[in-house]
């Protein structure tokens, strides 16, 4: 069967439009695959149980009421201290200014930015990271064979190549990291997901586990996933849109107000409400300066013809 024919039959099947003959044709195609060999018969006992357990573990994490297998993996109690984080946020709300905390905890260096603050950091190897607002970057003080940093939030990395080709690794979770030689890229791990946009060079994403999948990105590509790295989506994008923030502006291109709101929440700690939900579907294009929040909001309001009123960290969008 030809590809187009198959797709045609499948579309019809969905809409219930197949004639009895067409339905039989599709059925015959489906059945014809029964002759192919069974995948699992070629697996060793160990491989078989690895597959069986892997899927079952994922099913259990997806089916929440059954048990609580999830997860605090890693040293959450160590360097990343929610109490301190909350205190920083609180201070911001009260004082209304960006702050950052620099501290050493158990030999780990932790750099944080407040809402709306961007900051350029130089790492021990000379690599440069621009941290966007409300982000945390940390690494071991005695940084030896592997250059490894951990990121919550968003950062733009310019990684220098070392003479001995040491790997540079950015980890955003126990199930996701990426490895770099020398390169420039933007990475963000926020509530709604993780996103990597590559400007230059080459990075390798490590999905899940050491023996798990890897994915090599080329310049101009973006990879994103919500929760599970294996459910990633890869696409080609205009990379500039995703890293404009480091040059103190935001560039939108058919970006919905919903996405804009999510960004305002992540980076500036501003919560958006819309008087009519469909307002959030409105798309905007254009460039807005981020040097100060008021101007940023004005720019967004202008571009989308809405009125934005601000009360502390609450925003209300109404049609103009």
């Amino acid at each position: 069967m030809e590809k187009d024919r198959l797709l045609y039959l499948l579309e019809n099947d969905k809409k219930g439009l197949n004639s009895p003959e067409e339905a039989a044709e599709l059925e015959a195609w489906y059945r014809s695959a029964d002759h192919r060999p069974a995948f699992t018969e070629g697996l060793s006992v160990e491989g078989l149980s690895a597959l069986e357990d892997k899927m079952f573990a994922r099913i259990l994490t997806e089916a929440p009421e059954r048990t609580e297998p999830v997860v605090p993996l890693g040293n959450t109690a160590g360097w990343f201290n929610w109490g301190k984080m909350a205190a920083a946020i609180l201070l911001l709300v009260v004082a209304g200014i960006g702050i950052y905390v620099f501290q050493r905890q158990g030999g780990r260096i932790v750099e944080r930015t407040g809402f709306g603050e961007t900051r350029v950091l130089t790492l021990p190897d000379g690599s440069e990271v621009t941290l966007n607002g409300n982000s945390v970057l940390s690494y071991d003080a005695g940084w030896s064979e592997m250059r490894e940093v951990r990121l919550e939030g968003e950062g733009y990395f310019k990684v220098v190549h070392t003479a001995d080709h040491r790997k540079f690794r950015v980890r955003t979770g126990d199930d996701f990291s990426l490895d770099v030689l020398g390169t420039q890229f933007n990475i963000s791990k926020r509530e709604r997901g993780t996103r990597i946009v590559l400007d230059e060079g080459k990075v390798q994403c490590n999905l899940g586990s050491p023996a798990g999948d890897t994915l090599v990105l080329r310049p101009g590509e973006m990879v994103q996933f919500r929760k599970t790295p294996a459910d990633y989506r890869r696409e080609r994008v205009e990379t500039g849109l995703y890293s404009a923030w480091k040059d103190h502006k935001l560039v939108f291109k058919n970006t919905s107000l919903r996405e804009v709101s999510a960004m305002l929440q992540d980076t500036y700690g501003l919560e958006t409400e819309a008087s009519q939900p469909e307002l959030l579907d409105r798309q905007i294009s254009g460039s807005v300066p981020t040097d100060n929040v008021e101007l940023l909001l004005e720019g967004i309001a202008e571009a989308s013809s809405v009125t934005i009123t601000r009360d502390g960290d609450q925003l209300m969008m109404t049609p103009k």
Partner: protein
Amino acid sequence: MLLARLQTGDGDAFAALYRKYWRRLFDAAYRRILLREECEEIIQEIFTDLWTKRETLLISVSLEAYLFGALRYSIYNMIRSRKVREAYFDYLLQMPGEDSNYIEDRLHYEELALALENSIQKLPEKLRKVYQLSRKEHLTYKEIAEQENIPVDTVEKQMGRALKILRENLKEFAWAWIVLEIWDLYP
């Protein structure tokens, strides 16, 4: 029987159903998709769905027919949504036999198994022994205690330590970590 138990929220019945059907479903999916990740996704969704909807589920046919019907539905959707990359259409439509995908994808699971096995081998001997008797030979703690001539609470402690070490070593194996936790539910 299993179905009735499932509908009352019996987790063991759910595990038993999974164990009974996953392999045939996976093979049926793989024959038509030829991509292991997509197949994993489909099987996971079918069972997650089965669990989530267990109370409201009306199965007019047999459970088996229901599962294979759900499988077909997911496969059609997967192909329609073009998640199956263009290049695979050729295989999907023409290749009669086993292509190189089979080999590569099998290798993936063998490596996965190897990583877990390596961590088990690195356990201190006593812990490894207890661990293997429990997980591989499916002995109960009491049976292990008798066989090894040690008190039951020592077996429990050693298992606890073994799991803790494996969990540390396999930190990056989110799935393996979870499996270690739930293995008791799923002997």
